[in-house]
């Protein structure tokens, strides 16, 4: 039994003033300062003014949970509740205010978000929202992972795993066993889309090392840093001249896909046969053909990356595929090529919540590489100002490195625990078994096809 992995959570309070979901308005001309709202609110939104208790203070609406009680109890009907503009402005239609707020909560507390009342969102949706994960009851065992009553492993391997060993006449192994890296959770830190300031990268590197996972960094940054086995240099297509001498002892590198990649792979393997090579491929045009090339070229890892919203970057058809569907296709392709266990599939782009990690793995990925959630954990608002040249309003570049690292650690602790919930409900004892297990996934289009279409054969209204 390998050592049990767990992530220690230490609360890391937010630096900025919290952004509440609601805004409570008090009409001064109607309020008679009776104080009934003070008694009614269980969250401390309403209070009397400290300096002059005859009047009520401005509502502390960041504490409001939207229960409407003060609104309904005010004898003068002087209170109103609305969604706060600040909240609604967070993120965009993919990185919704809910996603940003829940990421902040998890980075601060390290806790699995738990709430009352049933799910209130849409029935299903595009991308990852078009699938559900399965569970077991009565006829299949489950695992009680989350509360530590049963150990569920989240470790995954990177590198080539032989499908069979060969032996000589005397029974000794003749196969050369390739090196693999094992990381304790199926999540690695991706290169950042923006906000690559020194302190941010320091915080991420520190978190990666603490969590014992990997972090992809741009080559230039990698060269600048002290050697650390948790850092994986990412070499873009512009940087084709490899610093071969530096690769000695480097456990893994990642190359951006271009036509010369097979040559470079060969060159690296000559210099440093132990080094695991990942090739980063855009989730898009000619992906199948490129995967064939990568597989035959000798790399061990495919990093399939979509855009920040989990979609094919430059769609030819104008109707871009979602990462989830491309993962399924690539997984099947690798199975068909009979190399599924010889290749590791890393995916990134649009992985915004813990559920996306579980679903990406269920569709066939081995590992998810996350990017924007890391910045959000550090209190990024995804305001897009950086992309218009404005400076960061939350001053990411000034953060305290240990604090930042702890926020990332907390986020991943919460994500891992949520992954354990999903695995436990399915009765899986390790995340390796989840990979490509589509028989334990429920896809909306399949339910619709097999369930509803025969029932409603008489056509739609």
């Amino acid at each position, binding site marked *: 039994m390998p050592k049990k992995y767990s992530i220690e959570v230490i609360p890391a309070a937010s630096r900025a003033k919290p952004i509440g979901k609601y805004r409570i*308005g008090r009409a001064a*001309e109607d309020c008679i300062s009776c104080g009934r709202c003070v008694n009614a*609110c*269980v969250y401390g939104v309403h209070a009397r003014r400290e300096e002059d208790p005859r009047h009520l203070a401005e509502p502390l609406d960041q504490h409001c*949970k*939207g*229960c*409407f009680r003060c609104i*309904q*109890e*005010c*004898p003068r*009907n002087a209170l109103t*509740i609305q*969604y706060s503009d600040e909240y609604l402005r967070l993120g965009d239609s993919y990185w919704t205010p809910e996603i940003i707020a829940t990421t902040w909560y998890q980075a601060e507390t390290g806790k*699995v*978000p*738990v*709430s*009352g*009342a*049933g*799910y*209130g*969102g*849409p*029935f*299903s949706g595009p991308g990852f929202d078009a699938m*559900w994960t*399965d*569970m077991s*009851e*009565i006829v*299949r*065992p489950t695992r*009680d992972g989350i509360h530590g*009553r049963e150990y569920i492993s989240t470790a995954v391997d990177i590198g080539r795993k032989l499908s069979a060993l060969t032996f000589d006449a005397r029974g000794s192994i003749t196969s050369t066993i390739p090196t693999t890296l094992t990381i304790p959770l199926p999540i690695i830190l991706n290169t950042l889309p923006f906000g690559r300031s020194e302190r941010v990268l320091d915080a991420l590197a520190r978190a990666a090392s603490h969590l014992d996972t990997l972090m992809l960094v741009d080559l230039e940054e990698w060269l600048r840093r002290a050697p650390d086995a948790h850092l994986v240099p990412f070499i873009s297509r512009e940087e084709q001249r490899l610093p071969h001498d530096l690769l000695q002892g480097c456990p893994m590198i990642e190359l951006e896909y271009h036509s010369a990649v097979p040559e470079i792979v060969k060159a690296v393997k000559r210099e440093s046969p132990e080094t695991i090579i990942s090739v980063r491929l855009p989730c*898009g045009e000619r*992906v199948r053909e490129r995967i064939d090339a990568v597989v035959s070229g000798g790399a061990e890892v495919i990093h399939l990356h979509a855009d920040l919203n989990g979609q094919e970057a430059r769609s030819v058809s104008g109707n871009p*595929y979602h990462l989830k*569907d*491309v993962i399924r*296709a690539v997984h099947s392709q690798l199975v068909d090529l009979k190399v599924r266990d010889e290749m590791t599939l890393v995916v990134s782009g649009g992985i915004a919540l*813990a*559920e996306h990690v*579980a679903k990406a793995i269920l569709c066939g990925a081995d590992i998810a590489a996350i990017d924007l959630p890391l910045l959000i954990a550090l209190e990024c608002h995804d305001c897009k100002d950086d992309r218009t040249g404005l400076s960061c309003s939350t001053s990411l570049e000034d953060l305290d490195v240990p604090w930042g690292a702890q926020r990332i650690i907390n986020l991943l602790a919460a994500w891992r625990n949520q992954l354990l919930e*999903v695995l*436990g*409900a*399915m009765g899986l004892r390790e995340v390796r078994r989840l990979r490509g297990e589509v*028989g334990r996934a*429920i*896809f909306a*289009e399949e339910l619709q096809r097999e369930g509803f279409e025969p*029932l*409603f054969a*008489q*056509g*739609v*209204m």
Partner: protein
Amino acid sequence: MAGLAVSYAPSRFPNELTEVEVKRDTSRCISCGSCAAVCPFGVHERRAGFNRISKPASARCIGASCEEMAFYCVNHCPRKALSLVESPQYRTLGDRRWTRDLILGTWKQAETGIPLKGRRYEIGDSGGGFDCIFFHFPKEGTEARSGRAGEPISTELELNRRTGPQVSIKVPFYGGGMSFGSVSLTVMLARAKAAKACGTFTCTGEGGYPDALKEYDAHMITQVATGLFGVSEETIQRVKIVELKYAQGAKPGLGGHLLGDKVTPEVARMREAVPGNNLFSPFPFHSVYSIEDHEKQIDWIREINPDALVSVKVSTARDVDMVAVGSYYAGAQIIHLDGSYGGTGAAPEIAKKNIAMPIEYAIPKVHEFLKAEGIRDKMTVIASGGIRTVHDAAKAIALGADGVVIGTTELVALGCVRCNSCESSRGCPRGIATTDPELSKLVEVDWGAQRLINLYAAWQQELVEILSRLGMRGIEELVGRYECLRYAGQSPAKGTEVRI
């Protein structure tokens, strides 16, 4: 259901939330009282002895439909000081599944006992499932619709189709499990009282069986769930139906959650636990890993109480149809399917949204599988997990269920706004899902029971009308009648074949 005593039960708060707000521009108003003189609903009041007219009581306003009326205050105001605007509260209320109209509509029905008409009170905005399924009624005057017009319509449902005691309910729905701890004793009592008045059942959930419910024993279901909190031989012997809870739709594959904040000394005593500690029930029953084990568990219940029906509550896994057949052979009378969008007092958000399938898909799957096995007429299929309105209930029955279980809807009738804060601190700020001694005083048993009776009465009346429009005379005729339904949603993208 003659004799269901509907009686007016208004909101317990002075300001009911409404769609419109009647606005008075006080800089224009001269307090002449014209509006007070015309409004028949008492929105405006010109009280004697006061200089100024009162603030409009918007909750009494009938809204935009008043524009056509001769007594429309806006038209009567000589100073043009009045206007009707959408209330900001209305914009903030509700979510995609429980829209603001569904919440306000359920409140209104619980207040008056009269069903509300109009699609916005029938469906939500989730974009799938029940929200995209509609009844297709035969045309008025046709044989299919009016052929049996004189015959009475029954909504009664027999819960046992096998040997053993007969237990029937007057309406094809009963209350879902809510434990003492997740909700207050007052709420449990109100639900039990309403169940008795309506000839149906309600369920204790997994948190013990308070003695105060003794007089309602004939209308109680007690739950035996994985934590076995508060379960004793005595509690199993008190009831006519025992529910074995294998899973819950909101958190399939996970045990019950009651966070420490809500484990008050009374709750802890009932559950034989320590106050202030999180109570996470294990998952699954660690003695049940096969249908044979499941049978042993049903036999165990039977041994203790041979007169009780056994209901098996499961969630909607991919193989839920096989579980249902297994439960039949293990001896259960009722298979209760709890869909993935069901209610909860506390559940991880990842589980609520992602694990197991929505109930709309599970019902026909189980219905067809039981039919193919030749045992459909021996098993009662109950559906829950996202039944918000009587229309959802009727659709679930047309998809293949015999009846439904409701939970969240009952809480909404008691004034829940679905703020998702049942789980922590002192619990529900509106006094429903809480055991805080002060907050639970916000609900009174009789008022709560009346709200539920009113809601049940409105549902029953509407259900009778649905059956009547379909030309049916009993709720059992609706079971599995897919041809009465039409699907109006978009099909998700066909296939996932990636051609790049």
